[in-house]
């Protein structure tokens, strides 16, 4: 992958490179200097316009639709908290993609890693629930560890057996889905559900549930702290330098004495661990138990978020917030737009469509080139080492 330090605020101040414009002053020069930010804003605007056209085509006033979406997600009582609640796991599954991506690995196993963390997090928090917040903490640790175990398997297969991580993570998504489902209708099934057969674990005792403090869910706070920590780690520490170097030039990393295999395993373990932690937080914070449906599409959304964030850990927060907001508002949007003439309302799938357009616009290099003529980055935002 190409290094993303151009957008990385941690890099020491840069000398004006030979390519930087000296001939244009003022606002334009400033914008060019911050072009990735500008490109994203323009991309968002274009996407929303395209989305508006789709909504209009359905016979609904786009302005009203967007307003509803935002109102439901941010203004409606409890809406903001729910948006943050949705944002939290998305930040973590986003980071689960970002960390390995920095090393050149494409982790599309967020689904499985999240589920693994969720089920064991829920179970440990239930067992240790008597210990109150300590139990919740243990649950988080369990989520982290079990997510990481999946990641370690992927990393070890990659580093020592040459199994491509895209393949192993896909396979593990299926395997984990099978195993967790079996656990939840078998050994870890809640007693009360044994007769009804509902696949879920025991409810976590209230003391060990994570709630919102002043409208901010604990999970969200944890996710933000971890995103900042990841950013700091990647940009300021020796470990981050190891990650980035392996991602930028494996041969040089080996030459420089960086243990590539260990970095590969570690990045997968950390990434998957964060996804697992996301699962545990989700189980402890929202459903208070594990159900297979807890995963939803959170793991796959993580990919979208990492790509939107251009592999920058800090940027996963706004990216996840955007996704969380759209998903929170979607139900209210459908609710508000159902009329006798449009009995289905604007279906929630509009969100997927919007996200696809946004991602397309954000990552299409021509957009930057078009806005900034020849000055745009040549390289694309974050690339993976598919072949190696």
């Amino acid at each position, binding site marked *: 992958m190409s290094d993303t330090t151009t957008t990385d605020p941690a890099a020491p101040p840069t000398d004006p490179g030979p390519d930087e414009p000296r001939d244009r002053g003022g606002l334009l020069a400033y914008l060019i200097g911050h072009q990735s930010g500008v490109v994203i804003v323009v991309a968002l605007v274009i996407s929303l316009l395209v989305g508006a056209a789709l909504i209009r085509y359905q016979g609904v006033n786009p302005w009203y639709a967007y307003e509803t979406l935002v109102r439901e997600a941010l203004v409606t009582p409890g809406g903001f908290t729910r948006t943050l609640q949705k944002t939290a796991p998305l930040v973590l599954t986003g980071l689960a993609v970002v960390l390995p991506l920095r090393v050149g690995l494409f982790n599309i196993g967020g689904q499985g890693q999240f589920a693994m963390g969720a089920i064991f997090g829920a179970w440990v928090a239930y067992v240790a629930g008597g210990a109150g917040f300590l139990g919740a903490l243990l649950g988080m640790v369990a989520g982290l560890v079990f997510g990481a175990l999946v990641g370690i398997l992927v990393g070890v297969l990659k580093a020592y057996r040459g199994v491509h991580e895209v393949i192993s993570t896909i396979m593990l998504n299926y395997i984990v889905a099978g195993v967790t489902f079996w656990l939840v209708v078998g050994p870890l099934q809640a007693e009360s559900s044994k007769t009804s057969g509902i696949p879920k674990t025991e409810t976590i005792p209230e003391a060990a549930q994570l709630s919102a403090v002043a409208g901010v869910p604990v999970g969200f706070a944890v996710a933000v702290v971890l995103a900042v920590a990841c950013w700091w780690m990647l940009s300021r520490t020796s470990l981050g330098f190891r990650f980035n170097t392996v991602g930028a030039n494996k041969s040089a990393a080996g030459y420089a004495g960086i243990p590539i295999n260990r970095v590969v395993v570690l990045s997968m373990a950390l990434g998957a661990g964060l996804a697992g932690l996301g699962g545990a937080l989700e189980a402890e914070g929202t459903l208070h138990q594990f159900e297979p449906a807890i995963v939803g599409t959170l793991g796959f959304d993580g990919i979208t978020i990492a790509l939107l964030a251009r592999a920058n850990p800090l940027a996963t927060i706004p990216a996840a917030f955007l996704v969380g907001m759209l998903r929170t508002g979607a139900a209210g949007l459908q609710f508000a737009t*159902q009329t006798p003439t449009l009995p289905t309302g604007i279906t929630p799938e509009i969100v997927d469509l919007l996200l696809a357009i946004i991602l397309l616009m954000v990552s299409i290099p021509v957009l930057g080139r078009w806005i900034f003529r020849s000055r745009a980055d040549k390289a694309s935002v974050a690339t993976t080492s598919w072949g190696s």
Partner: protein
Amino acid sequence: GCGGSTGSGSGGGTDSSASGSADSGAPTDDSNCADEAVFCIGLVTDTGKVDDKSFNQSAHEGAKAAAADLEGYYKYIETQDAKDYAANMQQFTNKKYDVVVTVGFLMTDATVEAAKGSPDTKFIGVDQGYPEGTSETNLTGLVFPEDQAGYSAGYLAGLMTKTNKLGQVLGLEIPPVQKFAKGFENGAKAANPEVSVKTVYHPAGDNAFNDPVWGAGQAKTQLSQGADIIFGAGGNTGNGALQEVAKSKGAGTDTYCIGVDTDQWDTVPAAQPCLITSATKLITKGVTDTITQAKDGEFEGVQTVGEAGLAPYHDFDSKIPDDVKTKVDDVVKQLQDGSLKTDVTL
């Protein structure tokens, strides 16, 4: 620059603050649900869609029918994420809807919670069996004896099979599906001790009810192993199996299929060449009836038992021998009056 302007679309907008339903006839919006005279019905799906050809769709149709009958107002929300159940129900309770239907046993806990929180709204939980001690009076769980429907279908299949081999292609291994499946097996064996039943559940979690290709493949395998009647029970996965049988060589003469949940003669027309019947639970009727109860006053109890049975034979009416029909009718009756047990335990 960026052309176009966001607000250019004029009219056509849905204005939620438009005037209420002053006059006679069904209300046209939900701004006055709190009003005694305005009867509002809401429905929340589990993570399925209202066009899923399965229980969400049946419940949706039941609620729609009730709204039409009772001159009520009806809206629904399709849940995208299991964590949104509460919030989605709240959309309705905030607007003081009179009845909220929640669909699917996955929403069991959430529905009880919501019922506690909104005593003025009546909740109907389709496929939901509540734990002992649930005492809310504004709540009823609509459950169906799936095992009986399965048993009757199995009984019919046991009598009809020439190869003595039956197949079942099923969705996820969860209670409603298991009850259908085990009922089917018991019924078939009761009708014909010689019979053997091949059973296969979809293994994966995510798309277990939405993998028609897999279902079709399983049906094909079972057919080639000699099964001549296949019971497809598992949303679109099961429908895939039905369609595969419908395409097979002896469809309608040597091989048959049996649908599930609703009369799939209507919902899966592609299966008509082989579809002798469907093991149904009358969700649509059940939902309409309980909504009517809710409007008129009180629910029967915390649980309401709906009807389950067999759909009409449609075009196969003439092809099924009369004695078979009689025997099956008997079984259906005995199951209904309780004199025959399906012996299904999970």
